[in-house]
């Protein structure tokens, strides 16, 4: 299988994602330049963290118009697996592949630390190697990661099982202190209705080796690998 990692001008986690896939997961991976229109036959496309186009205007607002994004949208609409991490999550909401928006952290500070995430569902290609309720230790690093959606829309997401990851304490409990940015319903990661597009603010690619402080992020990458090997998640056409 093959991963593609998109590089926008200002991406700064593209090499982390590339290295995690290539050297830790041990799968094939290629960079996809934002001006290219070629996904290079990737089975999974990762939109990495960083500050695409300097985050000018709004995070992700300008990146969504890159030529590669038109291909990513087509790929996603045809069922291809797309994972947006941090800035990548912001790009996915701006381009309309994921609902809601990411706004300034409630405390206005850039927050860079380890947090705990609870896996809410393992019926997704991004979490199929986890069990529901598993707690993953994964770092965040963002200033605009507060997930926002309106009353009613939030409930719809919850009812449809689209909340994939939630901020919790190390014991898996939702507490005000465990929410690092003011996200509504402690949402750390969501999927689209179809289930093939994920956005998450925490960085699984930064938690793939013991020396980094956690290997829990690997579970997301391993899930993607299993998903690609399984008929259940393979896209039509």
């Amino acid at each position, binding site marked *: 299988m093959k991963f593609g990692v998109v590089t926008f001008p200002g991406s700064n986690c593209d090499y982390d994602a590339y290295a995690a896939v290539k050297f830790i997961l041990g799968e094939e991976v290629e960079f996809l330049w934002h001006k290219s229109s070629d996904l290079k036959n990737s089975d999974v496309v990762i939109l990495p963290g960083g500050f695409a186009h300097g985050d000018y205007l709004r995070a992700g607002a300008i990146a969504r118009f890159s030529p590669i994004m038109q291909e990513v949208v087509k790929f996603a609409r045809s069922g291809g697996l797309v994972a947006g991490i941090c800035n990548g999550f912001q790009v996915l909401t701006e381009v309309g592949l994921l609902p809601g928006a990411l706004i*300034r952290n409630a405390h206005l500070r850039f927050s860079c630390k380890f947090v705990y995430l609870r896996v809410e569902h393992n019926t997704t290609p991004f979490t199929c190697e986890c069990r529901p309720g598993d707690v993953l230790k994964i770092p965040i690093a963002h200033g605009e990661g507060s997930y926002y959606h309106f009353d009613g829309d939030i409930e719809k997401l919850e009812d449809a099982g689209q909340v994939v990851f939630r901020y919790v304490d190390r014991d898996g409990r939702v507490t005000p202190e465990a929410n690092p940015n003011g996200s509504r319903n402690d949402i750390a990661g969501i999927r689209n209705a179809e289930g093939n597009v994920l956005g998450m603010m925490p960085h699984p690619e930064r938690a793939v080796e013991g020396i980094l402080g956690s290997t829990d992020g690997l579970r997301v990458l391993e899930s993607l690998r299993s998903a690609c090997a399984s008929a259940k998640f393979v896209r039509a056409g």
Partner: protein
Amino acid sequence: MTQTKKAVVYVRLKDGVLDPQGVTIQKALAQMGYRDFLSVRSGRFFELEIAGGADGIDRQIEEVCSKLLANPVIEKFEIERVA
């Protein structure tokens, strides 16, 4: 020569969307002793200079507002034409 025209676009968060910047500014004002300002909502504005004789400019401005300048999920915009 056709004169250029101007438009100003105001973008702000929709009602009800938390504005942590506004909240922080309001708190700062209260701390400075200005206790009559009960809330602050922040936003941004854009000045657009438009080529003279441009066709369908009102439609174009609407388009760029909803496509780029504002995020219609959480923001609203107002357009002001200045000559």
